[in-house]
């Protein structure tokens, strides 16, 4: 790296640490921005004003704080994983977002934005969902604040995450299967935006990850940062800071939520784990940061998987929540400046890790989460004796329709299982 480039990266890191990013244009260095149809610009501007006014406000903070404590069940536990630690030759800790209400970190963001929508006078909420966790969280949060909720979900995801569809509907949401585009998370976001464009004044778009136009990447990071703040304080009660922290990266909300509190801790290595899917060919994975290049989708300039004509690529992952060709702009910056390293875990590695976590720790993690565990397991193999924090972003109950396609197996049978199911 050229010396001036290194200096520029250091400047960007300091700006991030000093709370200066995103800047007034919604940029994280070269990434971010607001690439939306003109119809949405007034709504985006109103939302931005509301976010910067309400989030620091005492009354809003108190209201959110009590909802997080009394309704979501925060703080979530920090759990030592002794049998897994022994197996891996490392000291492993789980930050248990699976124990949060509705079973994943998504609720931290959903309740925060639902309160915001209410304060801004919205009369209706739309949301997208991939794995269904954000849809369930949105449905629950909307019921809690008393707003009607419409959830767009790709029809492929409706089939593979069916328990969550039922949950959303029982929580009062209307689920609309999306049959356009790639029929997964990407198409669900397209459709949610189309809905929002049709009614930008009354409708609030409750976006589920750290993606999209400014101010969403900022808003979602602020609402998810509670994960890392709690985890950092909790682990220090027992031990020193971890040597490394791992989180899975779809759009990047649980990862930025975990990492943000550790960015200034130079000795804590941070790893985002993307879905390596079934291979390295474009279309066989969802490894946006590892294999993508800068582009614009869903309102932001960020790393993206697209072909030479600029067409967005189909992606694949066994986990619906990671099956997305884009990623939040803050992660693109963190990769560029080298503060976070992004690696991949394949479908079969994730299935192995899931089985191991069930067998040794009595925890069924979400398939998304299993990617973080798989990434940590690989790192532990060459970093024996280290202390590792893993963001356990959600529980795996929703994945039963997928998991039941694979034989109940011992550990390390992921490859076989994938082959058997294929």
């Amino acid at each position, binding site marked *: 790296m050229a010396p001036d480039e290194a200096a520029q990266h250091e400047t960007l890191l300091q700006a991030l640490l000093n709370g200066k990013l995103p800047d007034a*244009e919604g940029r994280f260095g070269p990434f971010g*921005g*607001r*690439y*939306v*149809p*003109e*119809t949405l*610009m*007034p*709504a985006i501007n109103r939302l931005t004003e509301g976010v910067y006014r309400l989030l620091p406000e005492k009354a809003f903070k108190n209201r959110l704080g009590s909802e997080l404590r009394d309704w979501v069940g925060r703080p979530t536990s920090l759990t030592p994983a002794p049998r897994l630690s022994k197996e891996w030759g490392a000291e492993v800790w789980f930050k248990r977002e699976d124990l949060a209400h509705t079973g994943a970190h998504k609720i931290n963001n959903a309740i925060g934005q639902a309160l915001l929508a209410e304060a801004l006078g919205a009369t209706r909420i739309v949301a997208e969902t991939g794995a269904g966790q954000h849809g369930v969280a949105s449905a629950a949060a909307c019921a809690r604040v008393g707003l009607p909720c419409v959830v767009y979900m790709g029809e492929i995801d409706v089939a593979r995450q069916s328990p969550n569809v039922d949950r959303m509907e029982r929580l009062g949401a209307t689920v609309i299967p999306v049959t*356009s*585009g*790639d029929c997964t998370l*990407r*198409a669900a976001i*397209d459709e949610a*935006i*189309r809905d929002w*464009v*049709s*009614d*930008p*004044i009354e409708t609030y778009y409750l976006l589920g990850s750290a993606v999209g136009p400014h101010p969403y990447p900022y808003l979602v990071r602020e609402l998810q940062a509670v994960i890392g703040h709690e985890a950092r304080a909790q682990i220090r009660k027992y031990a020193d800071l971890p040597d490394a922290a791992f989180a899975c990266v779809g759009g990047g909300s649980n990862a930025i939520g975990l990492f943000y509190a550790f960015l200034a801790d130079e000795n804590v290595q941070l790893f985002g784990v993307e879905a390596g899917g079934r291979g390295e060919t474009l279309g066989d994975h969802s490894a946006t940061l590892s294999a993508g290049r*800068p*582009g*614009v*989708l*869903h*309102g932001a300039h960020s790393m*993206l998987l*697209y*072909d*030479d*004509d*600029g*067409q*967005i690529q189909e992606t694949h992952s066994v986990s619906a929540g990671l099956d997305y060709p884009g990623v939040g702009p803050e992660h693109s910056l963190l990769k560029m400046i080298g503060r976070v390293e992004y690696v991949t875990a394949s479908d079969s590695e994730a299935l192995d890790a899931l089985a191991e976590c069930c067998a040794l720790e009595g925890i069924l993690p979400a398939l998304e989460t299993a990617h973080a565990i798989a990434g940590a397991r690989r790192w532990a193999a060459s970093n024996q004796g280290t202390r590792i924090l893993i963001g356990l972003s959600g529980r795996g109950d929703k994945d039963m329709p997928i998991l039941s396609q694979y034989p109940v197996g011992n550990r390390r049978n992921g490859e076989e299982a994938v082959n058997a199911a294929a």
Partner: protein
Amino acid sequence: MQPHEVLRHALEQANGSALVAFLTAGYPEPERFLQILEEVEGVADAVEIGVPFTDPMADGVTIQRSSQAAIKKGISLRWILDQLAARKTKPAAPILLMSYLNPLLAFGFDKLAARANEVRVSGFIVPDLPYEESAPLKDCLDTHGLALVQLVTPATPSGRLTQLCKMSQGFVYAVTRTGITGGKTELPLELAEYLGTVKAAAQVPVCAGFGVREREQVKLINQYTDGVIVGSALIEALERGESAAAFLKELRL
């Protein structure tokens, strides 16, 4: 005259009833692209060629369908520019490219502006590029005098509307309603007031579009603007196997 002035001039020549037609490139059949384009140019005062994109978030079902079909048949920005380059005759009406940003980014703004100018494109409409983000593209288009058309909508606050009208080149694209393309716009009473405001602020012709499909609508809108834009309805006519020229003539009678 600069390309953006050619566009403006062509619309002004229509004396308050300009017709701008949109078609998705290479749809329904790539082989008929230039033939349909020529037919449309024969009736319309300007033509928007839609560059198909996988994620057209501002478009309704018709343009989603035509875009997906075109991509499947291999239509790309590169293909469109090559087709235009291969034309023997000058276009009978100014041509605009309507594209989401990512295909333009992938091509490279610099190279794109030069090439577009070479193949006699007059300007661009980019539905996911609000003016706040438009400087990098606009700088490249300016080098060749190509228009960057701004859109305004009924949701645009008045200060912003004035600013957008001032910045727009070629014409101002007045979106008739909040929403996506296609369907049919019911024309509410407020429409007159909104279009009147746009017209008053604009320094170039104002053309209104989104959900325009019938002669009655065209007549009504033309009372307040310099013209109308027709997209989804034309694509649907092509899907029914009708002649593009006949459909457009019927609209503008």
